[in-house]
Each structure stands twice: as structure tokens, then as C-alpha cells.
């Protein structure tokens, strides 16, 4: 379950706990941002400002790093993140049909979040589970050998 920001105190305590765990070093920046991203589902602007203050790094540097890595997001995401692997091994196993049905079922284009805030649909490069392509990952759940017929059932498991 994702956390939402209630007060300024929330921001300070979450940043503090991440920095304490990983250390206030430049090499800890990516792990710190990853942890915060996991907490909120993305990197809220006020959190980045706080990280910038605590680590004494320019905010622009943080944005430059955060926008580089696929697992970090500077925009809010839905409650559930669907990653669809679009690399060749899944593609050869008819991944395109799965992708089509995903888009149709959700009414979303890649990168979009549904109006009710439930889903965010993104394409991904290889997820490393290629023996069972096509592969989709929803939050932390991995689904392999996905067929177009299975997609509605899989989506129905999430509220």
C-alpha cells in the first residue's frame, strides 16, 4: 500500500529514515531515492527538496538522476503499476497481442494513469524472466506465459 503525504513532518521523517539507513553519501543517492519511490509510488517534489537539503546536493542533480532511471518516477502513479515487457523474447512469443488487450481493457496508452488513479500502464525493457514470455509484472507480482485470454482474469485480482 502506498503512503500519501499528510504533513511536512511525514516528509521529514521518511527522508530521515532513508538517509539513516543508507548513509548521507553521494553513493547512497540512488538507493535513497529508490526507497522513497517505493514508499510513495513516485518522488514528490517536496520530498526531493528535503533530500536535497539533507544531502546538500542541488535539486537539479536529484531531478537529473531521478529522471534517468526507469524505476524512479517524478510523476504520481496509480495504485497499481503494470509493467509490460516489450523486448524481443516476449515479442516473439506473441507479446503484441497481450499488449493490445491490455491497452483495450484499461483504455490506456503507455505511460498513462487511469482517471480513477487505479492503474498506471508502462512498457518495460527485459525483466529477466524470459523463459516464460510474454511477461507482465503488476506491483510485485510476476505473471508469465500470459495469453490475451488470461489478461482480464489477472486484472480482476486487483482492487
Amino acid at each position, binding site marked *: 500500500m502506498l503512503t500519501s503525504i499528510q504533513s511536512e513532518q511525514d516528509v521529514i521523517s521518511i527522508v530521515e529514515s532513508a538517509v539513516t539507513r543508507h548513509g548521507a*553519501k*553521494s*553513493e*547512497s*543517492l*540512488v*538507493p535513497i*531515492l*529508490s526507497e522513497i519511490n517505493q514508499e510513495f509510488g513516485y518522488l514528490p517534489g517536496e520530498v526531493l527538496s528535503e533530500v536535497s537539503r539533507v544531502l546538500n546536493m542541488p535539486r537539479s542533480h536529484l531531478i*537529473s*538522476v531521478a529522471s*534517468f*532511471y*526507469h*524505476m*524512479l518516477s517524478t510523476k504520481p502513479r496509480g495504485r497499481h503499476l503494470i509493467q509490460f515487457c*516489450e*523486448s*524481443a*523474447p516476449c*515479442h*516473439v*512469443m506473441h507479446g503484441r497481442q497481450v499488449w493490445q488487450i491490455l491497452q483495450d481493457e484499461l483504455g490506456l496508452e503507455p505511460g498513462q494513469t487511469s482517471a480513477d488513479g487505479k492503474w498506471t500502464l508502462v512498457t518495460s*525493457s*527485459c*525483466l*529477466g*524472466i*524470459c*523463459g*516464460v*514470455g510474454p511477461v507482465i509484472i503488476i506491483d*510485485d507480482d510476476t505473471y508469465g506465459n500470459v495469453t490475451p485470454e488470461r489478461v482480464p482474469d489477472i486484472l480482476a485480482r486487483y482492487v
Partner: protein
Amino acid sequence: MKPIRSLMLVSSDPESTRRGAQEVHRRLHREIKALDLDDEVAVSMIGDVGRHDALPMVIVYPEAVIYGPVTPEDVHFLVEEHLHKGRIAAGLQASDRELSGRIAWLSARRGTLPAEQRIVLARVGLIDPENIEDYVMYDGYQALGKALTTMSPADVINEIGKSGLKGRGGAGFPTGMKWRFVSQANGYPKYVICNADESEPGTFKDRLILEGDPHSIIEAMSITGYAVGASQGYIYIRGEYALAQDRLHKAISQARQLGFLGENLFGSGFNFDIHVHIGAGAYICGEETALIESIEGKRGEPRSRPPYPTTHGLWGKPSVVNNVETIANVPSIIRNGAAWYRHFGTSNSPGTKVYTILGNVNVTGLIEVPMGITLREVIAIYGKGMKNSASLKLAQTGGSSGSIIPASLQDTPMDFDSYARTGVSLGSGALLICDEDTCVVDLAKVLLNFFRRESCGKCTPCRVGTQRAHQILTAISEGIGTQRDLDDLQMLSDRLTEFSHCGLGQTSAVPIRDIFRHFRAEVDAHVQLKVCPAGACPMSGQWVSIHWAGKSGLSPM
């Protein structure tokens, strides 16, 4: 191709042909049919197998028995004995003595089933990866003890050098040489970095090693540290590999408790510890200098080389960066010696290689086999034949940065040298097997989409070139490609190779180069006839790019 029991290969080099290989091949078919075994036994002609003293040769899998010279008159006896009675046809076997290096391993594994040779994956699936005692019971940490107590750092480097171990991440650089560079480099401290940012599409060998045998990597890194004079190691693991991260953390803490990590290991005065650095999703971070930038907390953009990480790596200090599979070989080599290791594989590419088998075969998965096996053997023996009895059209070796090879190259031994001679990259060991329903334009489009997405944007040839190449391939797949597009694509491919800053941009041209080289007619059909022969491309002619609308006159760079 259906699941089969045996595979018989007949040599068909010019000398074999002169000595009647065609007739042997024909009679094999006839005899097999006569015994009603033609559903279970496949017979194929293969090219030069690198041995010329006993031609024509017949090699039978999975037992890997080599017969030769086989005359047409011998065929009845051979089939009767080997396939019908199930024993070796006495007197027909080729002599052991003159086996050339390339097929010596065939003989070494004769009579063993399965014919896999596991060094890197020896313990995977056999031990409890979360229990260090299991690892220790299966020879674990013996190599570290041996290195620290009986060998000097120079001895360790020499042994790895003599073993002929080459990097398994894709480039195939000799590991011993890399270690020597770092050990001789000025600067302190030095670092050992294990590259576990496995992101090459179709590759998951490192994940299985880390999930199944995490201690082997810890032991290997400690040995590396001792050899090069480093006391700190980093494992850079991709963010998506949650289970592997968890297992590594557990393994490290167990190793610390039992004194296999930390200070004064085995009373030798040598200290070593490991930090796990978790990535956040970026293919380019598998490039060693981008990986180092990423550890330092920056965008993972590759540095200019030289200087190489061996002298200017993490924090500007000498660093050795090795792939997971590469160093997973190290403990076995130290334990058993370089000479033992050289028994496996070919003389120029010793050892084994882990392959992932994917795509249109009956069985997908992971195998570890000696270097030098051929694609045909992999598909028939481990892939259990093509799915739905389809025929092989092409294979993509080594992930996105590898090569697209046509079925005609399926008998080339898969080792670094043989592949380099035919202009093929062995890459990371992914083998994506594709049947006739695969369209080469569609495949190249998917690959270029990958590169355009993963390009870090630092250099223009790659940032713009991959984007433009994907745009052109999309147009071709929609049936609106022109002759000019093909010329542009050719030029883009050349320029990506020549001018890109790092391997990502350089190898992004490979799919284009390969489909032009091997499948030019099929590409031309899309452009000139507006037809996709495989029936995979939409060819609807309605493609309008959101990003490029109105810019169709843009020239490629």
C-alpha cells in the same frame, strides 16, 4: 522438428563428400526408416567439424559417440547396433588419439547423460542457497582458503591467466589479463566490482546463479580482491532482481559470521568485505563505466575510455569489473587448477558457457555446456526440437546487442573464435530461436525500439540514430518505406557503429547490418512489393509518428 531420441550428424566437408558422405547420409535415412525409427531419430549433414583423420564421420547424440571413417557399407551395422540394440557399434569408433581441441570435449563427455557440463551452475538447485553450511559441504570456501594460505596474489592471477578464462558478459576479454592490469595499477584503495546488472533481453543466467548459489560469488570476489590487492567489493545488482538481492544480503551476513568475509580471513591478514548496490532500472548501467558512475550516485552515462577502469575506476581508483558468470568460474579454477579447466570447451575458449534457450522451441530454459556446441545441437538436444514442428528461420544470439544469424550458420561451433570469424557475437548467451513466422523487419523494429528507449542520450549518434532507425523500420513495416529509407538505414547503421560513444550505440546497428546481410530480399519485399512475407507486419500504410509528424524530410544526422 519433433522431440527426438537421437540426433545423428554426418560430416559434409569436401573431403567427407569425396569419400561418400552423401551415400552414408542416404543410407542412414533408409536404415532408420526400415526400423521405423524415423519419428525418433533425426539425421543431419553438418559442415567441417575440425577433425580430418577419420572422414566421413557420424556423431551420435546425446551419447556424443564419434564414428569414423564410416563407409556406406558400415551404415547397416551402425544403425542396427547403436539405434536398435542400443550399444556402441564396436570397431567403428574414431580413435581417441587425434581428436582436435574443438571436439575433444565430445569424447570427454562420452557416455554421460545429460551432456551438460556444470561448473558455474554446479550447485544451483542442489543446495539450499540460504544456508552457508550447504555451500561449505559442497567444497565451498575451499578455494578461498587455498588461495589465501598457499598461493601468492601473483600465483592466483597466473592460474586464472593460464586457465584461459574470458569474460562472459559479452566482450570476451581475458580475465587474468584484466586482473593483472589492476594489480599493477598505481592507486589505493582498489575495488572489486561484480556486474550483476543483467539487463540484456533474453538473459537471466546471472539471476539464477545469484539466486541458486550466492556464496560462490562472494567467494569469487574475495579471491579476486586478494589477487588484485583490493579489500572492498561492490555487487551492482539490477533493481528488479528482488529475490537475488535478498539471497545476497543473507549470504553476506552468514559469510561475515563464519569469518569468510571481514578481517584477517583464514589468518592471512587479508581483509575483504562486500557492499550490495541496487540499481534502479537502466540497461546502460551494465556498461562498466556507466555502472561505476551509477554507484557514485550519478546518471549512468558511460565515461570516455581510455582511461579504463583498470586504472581509473570507482572514485578514480583502479577497479576490476567482472560479470557474475565469469567470476563464478573462479573458485573451481583455483580449487582444481587451470589444467583441469582447460579440459572443457575449445583450446581458445576454455570452459563452459551458460545459455538461455528461448523462443519457438519445445523446451525453454537454461543450460551450461562446454564452449563449442552448435546451435543445431542446442535446439535438437536441449530445446527438444522446434515448436509445432516448424523450421528454424533465424536465431538471435546474445540478446539485443548480439547477432541475428540465419539457419545456414547453425553448425558453426559457438565459441568466441569461431563466432568472431563468421562475424557473429556470442554476447551474453541468450539464444532466441525464431521460426518462419518471424519477420526480420518486425524483429529489428523491436530491437531498435529497445535501444532507442535505453540510449542514455549522452552522445548524438546514438540518441538520434536509434530513434531515426526505429522510425524508418516502423515505416517499412507499415508498407510505406522507400528506397531512400533503405539507403538511410544503411548509412545510419554505419554511423552508429563508427561514431557512437559506447557499446550500446555501436551494437544497436547490428540488427540492421545483419538483416541486410542475411535477409535482404525479405526487407526489399516490404519496400518494393509492399508485402511482408512472414505476415507479421501490419503493412497498413497508416503510420503517423506522434513525435516526428511533419518532419519526414529530416535527414539522418
